[in-house]
C-alpha cells in the first residue's frame, strides 16, 4: 500500500461522493422529479475509484449505462452531473444526454454509453491515439458482466491485443445483467478466463476491497505504460439497488441486498482498514462525510432550481458545420 494520507482521503471522498450521489438519487427519483431511467452505482464504488485513482485528466475512460461512479471517480463536476441527470440547461451535456450519456472531455471521460458493449471499441480508438501521441497515457474501459457477452467487446479485446494497445478492460461482475445472472449468461462463468483466452493478462479481485482493486489496477496500468499491451481486470461485486430505479428485483433473494450491504460494503471495508491500520481516524472520515453530504445537498438544490434548456437547443449541436 503506497498511498499517502491525502490520497487515502481523496479515495474515501470519491467513494463517499459516489455513494451519497446515488443514495440521494434513489430518493429523488422516487419523487418523479428526474426524467428517464437511471442505473445506480451504489455498492461498486471501490472499482471506479480504485481504477481511476491511477489516472490523470489526459488518461481516458469509457463507461456504461451505470456511469455516475466512473464520472465522479474521473473527476467530473458533481453539480454539473446532477444537473445533467435532472435535464437542465447547464448540465454537463446541456441536458441533452442525461444519466446514460454523461461525458467530460476535459477530464478524459469519453462518455457513458447506453449501448451495452458500446464503449470498449471506442476505448481501443482512444488507446490508438495515446499510443501515437507517445505520451504513456492509458485508457480504461469499464463494462459489466453482461457486457462481456457482447461481440463488440470481444472484437475490441482482440484488436487491443493485436495492436498492443494500452487499454485496461475492467469488468464489474455485480452478479446480474438486468434480470439475468452472470453464472447463466457467461458461458464459462469466468470472465477473466475468457479474456486470458484472447492473449492478455487477466486478473480477478474483490471489488468491495478498494485496496485490492487499487493495487491490482496499478500493477496492470504499469504493464500498459511499459507498452506490453492490454490487460483485463475482473472485479466481483454487487449492486445495492435494482438494475434501474423501479426494478422490482424478483430475480434476487429477498435478503440478498441486505446481506451484501453488511458483507460487501466497500466504504465500511475501507473505514475499517484505514482506522485499524491507524492511517486515518474516524474523525477525519466523518469530516469527509459531512463535506460530501453538503456537496450533494447543494447539487440537488441547484439542480432543482436550474432552468431547463431552451427548446431551440433541440436543433443545435448536430454538426460542427452545417
Amino acid at each position, binding site marked *: 500500500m503506497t498511498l499517502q494520507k491525502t490520497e487515502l482521503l481523496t479515495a474515501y471522498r470519491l467513494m463517499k461522493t459516489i455513494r451519497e450521489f446515488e443514495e440521494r438519487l434513489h430518493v429523488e427519483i422516487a419523487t418523479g422529479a428526474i*426524467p*428517464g*431511467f437511471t442505473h445506480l452505482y451504489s455498492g461498486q464504488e471501490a472499482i471506479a475509484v480504485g481504477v481511476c485513482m491511477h489516472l490523470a485528466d489526459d488518461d481516458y475512460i469509457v463507461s456504461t449505462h451505470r456511469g455516475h461512479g466512473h464520472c465522479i471517480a474521473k473527476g467530473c463536476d458533481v453539480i454539473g452531473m446532477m444537473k445533467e441527470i435532472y*435535464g*437542465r440547461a447547464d448540465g454537463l*451535456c446541456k*441536458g*441533452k*444526454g*442525461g*444519466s*446514460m*450519456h454523461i461525458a467530460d472531455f476535459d477530464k478524459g471521460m469519453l462518455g457513458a*454509453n*447506453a*449501448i*451495452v*458493449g*458500446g464503449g470498449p471499441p471506442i476505448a481501443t480508438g482512444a488507446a490508438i491515439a495515446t499510443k501515437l501521441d507517445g505520451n504513456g497515457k492509458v485508457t480504461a474501459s469499464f463494462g459489466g458482466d*453482461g*457486457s462481456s*457477452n*457482447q*461481440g*463488440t467487446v470481444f472484437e475490441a479485446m482482440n484488436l487491443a491485443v493485436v495492436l498492443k494497445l494500452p487499454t485496461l478492460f475492467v469488468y464489474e461482475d455485480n*452478479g*446480474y*445483467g*438486468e*434480470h*439475468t*445472472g*452472470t*453464472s*447463466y*449468461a*457467461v*458461458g464459462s462463468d469466468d470472465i477473466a478466463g475468457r479474456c486470458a483466452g484472447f492473449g492478455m493478462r487477466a486478473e480477478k479481485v474483490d471489488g468491495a476491497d478498494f485496496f485490492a482493486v487499487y493495487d491490482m489496477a496499478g500493477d496492470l496500468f504499469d504493464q500498459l505504460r511499459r507498452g506490453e499491451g492490454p490487460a483485463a481486470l475482473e472485479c466481483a461485486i454487487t449492486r445495492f439497488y435494482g438494475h434501474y430505479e423501479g426494478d422490482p*428485483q*424478483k*430475480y*434476487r*433473494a*429477498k435478503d*440478498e441486498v441486505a446481506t451484501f450491504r453488511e458483507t460487501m460494503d466497500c466504504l465500511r471495508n475501507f473505514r475499517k482498514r484505514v482506522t485499524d491500520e491507524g492511517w486515518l481516524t474516524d474523525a477525519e472520515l466523518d469530516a469527509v462525510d459531512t463535506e460530501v453530504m453538503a456537496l450533494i445537498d447543494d447539487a440537488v438544490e441547484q439542480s432543482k432550481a436550474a432552468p*431547463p*434548456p431552451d*427548446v431551440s*437547443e*433541440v*436543433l443545435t449541436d*448536430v454538426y460542427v458545420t452545417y
Partner: protein
Amino acid sequence: MTVKTFREALNETLHAEMARDSKIIVLGEDVAGGAGGTGVEEAAGGIFGVSSGLFKAFGAERVIDTPISESAIVGAAAGAALAGYRPVAELMFADFIGVSMDQLYNQIAKFRYMFGGKTQCPAIIRMPTGAGMNMGAQHSQTIYPIVTSVPGLKVAIPSNAADAKGLLTTALRGDDPVVFFEHKALYPRKCDVPDGDYLVPFGEAALVREGEHATVVALARMVNFAEKALDALAADGITADLIDPRTTSPLDLDTILESLEATGRLIIVDESNPRCSVASDIAGLVASEGFDLLKAPVQLVTAPHTPVPFARELERAYVPSPDDIAAAVRKVVAY
C-alpha cells in the same frame, strides 16, 4: 370484444399462438428473466412484460433467455427459422439493431431470394420503439424507415391493441420474416380487441376516421396524436380522412390514393427523423403515382434531423405534437 391494453393484446396473442403451434419459440434478453439469479423463476417476462407468463406456460425450452448478444439472438432466430421453427426474437429496444443488423438485413431478409426461393425464414423480430420516455438518444429511435428499405423484410407498426393482436397473429401464421415495432408509449393504452382468432392482413391500411378536407397518414403513436389534432380541428369544421398504414412493407398506397381522390391534400406524420423517412417515402411515392390527385404541397410532419434529446422540454419539442399536426392540416386546407 374485450378491452385490453396493447401489452395485454400482444401477450395474449403470444400465449394463444404458442399453444396452437408448437413450432413457435420466444428468445431474447430477459424474455423470462431470473436465470442464474437467487430469486424467482420468470423474474421478468420481458422488460415491457410482453412475454409475461410464457416461461411458466411453455418452459425454458421454448422461452429462451439469452446473454446480451443481439447478433446471436437475431442469428439464432434466423437459423431456427431455416430449420423449421417460428422464432419470435425480442430486441429490448429497436435501437439495438445496430449490434444485430447484419443478421437482420443481410441474412434473414435475403435468404429466400439468394437461395432461389428454396427456403423461407419466418422469423419475427419484435422491437419496442419510439421516443417519449426521456430515454435518450440511444433508446428512443423509430428505426422502421431503415428496415422498410430492406427487401425481404415485412414491417408491422401497430397503433392500437386490436391491430397489435391482428398483425402479430398474421405475422406468426405467415411464412415471411417480419420486423414488428411496438411503440413504448402504447403499451398501457387500451381499446376494444376482438376475441378469438383475429388476423389483420399485411398491406391493408386502416381508415381510422373519415373526413372531407384532407388525408392524414400517421403511424404508431402518431395515429393517436393525429386523432387529437383532428378533434381540435373539428371545432373549426375541418375534417380529414385518417389513414394508418399499419404495415410499411408492404405498403397500402391504394387506400392513400383513394382518399386523395376526394381530398387532394396530404399530411404525413412520422415520428422518425425526416430524411429517408416513411414520411418522405410516402410523399415521394404519391408524387410519383398520385401526382394528379394532389392539390397542395404534401405536408411532412416529422421529428427534426437531430438525435433524440434527453430533457423533458427538449424531447417534447422533438416529438411531433398534435399541435404540429393540426397546424399542418390547417396550412394545407387553407392552400
